[in-house]
């Protein structure tokens, strides 16, 4: 997919902004994160007979202005969960490789880490995360990350934004560059969190218009 270059990136930071409707959507097929890759026996035992990761698709759109990247993701979620009190929030994440050739489903490795932005419906919290394998995620470097989400009629729409410039351990991005993007979404109502999620089975090419 392509991230189109625009001039007024600020008008794209709201997922409901009209400008997004003219951007082409790239539909990504989603699958439940494989049970066998779940990091602990307990998680496997709990979820082996329980459905999860049932979001079948995610639609991705993206623009940038040479300095800031915005990624719009929407997916189907019948019941909203903002993670009030003890609930788990709906959430979404986008991932880019930092270096090497990380395997998306196993969350990278120390040789080939991946960098993610994760947004949670609880307070629109958006975090920069560095992963070097399953269960390893640590706070990632600051990339001026931001996220904003909105839910309407069974569809979540979230806009992630970050600076293209990246410090060490964040995925380097620049206009004209081709990289990879991966996606995950969590259904809070189904108590999905950590590796219990729907995920794009593999990377998708991601081209930043020059």
């Amino acid at each position, binding site marked *: 997919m392509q991230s189109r270059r625009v001039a007024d990136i600020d008008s794209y930071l709201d997922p409901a902004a009209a400008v997004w409707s003219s951007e082409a959507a790239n539909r990504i097929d989603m699958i439940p994160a494989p049970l066998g890759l*779940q*990091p*602990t*026996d*307990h*998680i*496997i*035992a*709990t979820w082996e007979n329980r459905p999860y990761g049932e979001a079948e698709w995610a639609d991705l759109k993206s623009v940038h202005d040479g300095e800031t990247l915005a990624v719009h993701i929407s997916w189907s979620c019948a019941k909203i969960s903002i993670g009030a*009190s*003890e609930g788990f929030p709906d959430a979404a994440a986008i991932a880019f490789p930092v270096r090497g050739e990380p395997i998306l489903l196993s969350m990278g490795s120390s040789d080939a880490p991946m960098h993610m932005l994760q947004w949670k419906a609880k307070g629109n919290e958006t975090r920069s995360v560095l992963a070097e394998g*399953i*269960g*390893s*995620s640590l706070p990632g470097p600051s990339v001026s990350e931001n996220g904003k989400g909105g839910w309407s009629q069974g569809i979540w729409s979230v806009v992630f934004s970050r600076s293209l410039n990246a410090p060490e351990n964040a995925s380097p991005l620049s206009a004209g560059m081709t990289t990879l993007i991966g996606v995950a979404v969590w259904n809070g109502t189904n*108590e999905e*969190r*950590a*590796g219990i999620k729907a995920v794009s089975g593999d990377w998708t090419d991601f081209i930043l218009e020059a």
Partner: protein
Amino acid sequence: MSSKQVAMVIDLNKCIGCQTCTVACKTQWTNKEGQEGMYWNTVSTAPGGGTPKDWEGMGGGFRDGKAQAGIRPKQADFGDAWEFNVEDVMFGGDPNGTVGPMEGDPIYGTNWDEDVGGGDYPNSFFFYIPRICNHCTKPACMEACPRGAIYKRDEDGIVLINEDHCRGFRFCQEACPYKEIYFNQTTGTAQKCIFCLPRVEEGVATACSRQCPGRVRFLGFLDDEDGPIHKLVYKHKVALPLHPEYETEPNVFYIPPLAPPSFDDEGNEIDESRIPILYLISLFGPAVHDSLEIIKHERELKRQGGTSELMDVLISRNWLDLFGPFTTQPKDVARTLEGRGNA
């Protein structure tokens, strides 16, 4: 498995259900925002709902070595932390009001079933059972955490949740078969008994142990043959883990409860103890039978004027003998972090 393992024996014959341990822990560790409904130490009346309610049906732990699915307890299962309309009624606003929980009439609390128990009058029965995190040799919580945020200290076997690493996923709450882990909504982390690590690392007994007026709790290392733990668990074989079938190998052990006999309408004795042995076996495993027999036998020895090391240990005439190596008095430790030097 750690190099050394600290352990606790709780004597149910000495526990008086006063909850001083509960409040000792509460005022020491869980008195901040987000921890209102959190009790790292509880005392429940058994049989009864316990804390959280009906926790024994919530799964987790291992069976034949395989991790088991579990239910995550919610705050309502533990009992909500009620707030009261005292100010309104006391100082104006609502002088004729009724002081009570502002959230409405409660339906459960951490000690809701206090002194209720089971059986039929006059052969009803109950006893108190204090619980903390068992600091298991095979902690199900530690196995369950996808973050590796739970660890077992090599030097003493204390199981801790690294709250910097914890992301609040709460698989640990599901996996712990004893449901001893709470979720702090303010910090977004799981929290549980830390075996009073800041005290223990300075040689001071845990708050629940040291503050226990019933002198119920013994502390020490499992392999210290001179300490009370080794004597009660291994030498005299009277201290038993709770629900050994959960396979986490708890390091908190219990002296099972005696009780007065049950009787029929004429006063003929029915059972020597009114607590059904099958109920006790369901809690402590089949070893509970021998444990009780040993205790009764040794007690009878004392009654006949004999001596009994077991009874002497259980009595612990010198209070500090309860605590193995953890006999430092709090006033003798540094009062600042800096002063402790190991912060």
